[in-house]
């Protein structure tokens, strides 16, 4: 937890669901975290966690979809030094019970994204997606 008081602020942006959007997602996060005056090391971690969550949407929620016009929305809010990042998408419904990372000692490619998210954030929660959204993921961290 940092001792710096961060500004209350909220911003959201929609991105096309494809791998080439991931860089735009990172740049959006970096810009917002700059405004929130989050220090570099924490900023790098948060950007990684958000990018991994966005990547999971591209890889898993839309793995059988050929529709390149689908959107995902990333919303970053900070209130009373509590950071909340919400993701909204209309992909395949996520079963939270099936979202798990690989055993960290079982070294093989893949299965690390969820581990990184859990390592970096305080809480990871799948909420009911209100229409038109199907999935609503919320990551939180006390700054």
């Amino acid at each position, binding site marked *: 937890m940092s001792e710096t008081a961060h500004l209350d602020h909220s911003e959201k942006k929609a991105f096309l669901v494809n*791998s*080439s959007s*991931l*860089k735009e997602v*990172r740049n959006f996060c970096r810009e917002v975290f700059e405004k929130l005056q989050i220090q570099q*090391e924490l900023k*790098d*971690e948060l*950007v*990684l966690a958000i*990018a*991994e969550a966005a*990547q999971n949407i*591209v*890889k898993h929620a839309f793995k059988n979809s050929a529709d390149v016009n689908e959107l995902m929305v990333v919303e970053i809010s900070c209130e009373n030094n509590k950071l909340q990042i919400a993701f909204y998408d209309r992909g395949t419904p996520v079963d939270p019970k099936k979202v798990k990372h690989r055993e*960290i*000692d079982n*070294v*093989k*490619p*893949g299965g*690390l*994204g969820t*581990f*990184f998210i859990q*390592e970096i954030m305080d809480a990871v929660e799948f909420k009911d997606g209100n229409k038109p959204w199907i999935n609503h993921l919320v990551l939180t961290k006390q700054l």
Partner: protein
Amino acid sequence: MSYKVNEEGNIATVHLDGEIDMDVTEKAKEVIFPHIDAGKEVHLNLSNVQYMDSSGISVLIESHQKALEKNTKVIIKDVSKSVLKVIMMAKLEQILNLE
């Protein structure tokens, strides 16, 4: 991501430049794997890579394991602080060859 490859004897030095994410992993594999398949020792210079996500880490693991199969090795050189942090978060600093 851009890249540059220098070959000298049995060593192929691959310099990657930019951010390594899911969007560029196939390209990274296309650059690295043929040298491993040819039995070369690959020196992967990451000094100009400031961001790497789990997809990039998977490329490092896959390269390392492929090299072991081919009785050669991949040495990861000049890792930036930010990428080293991700490697350490994945608890791979004792598994991968870092210099």
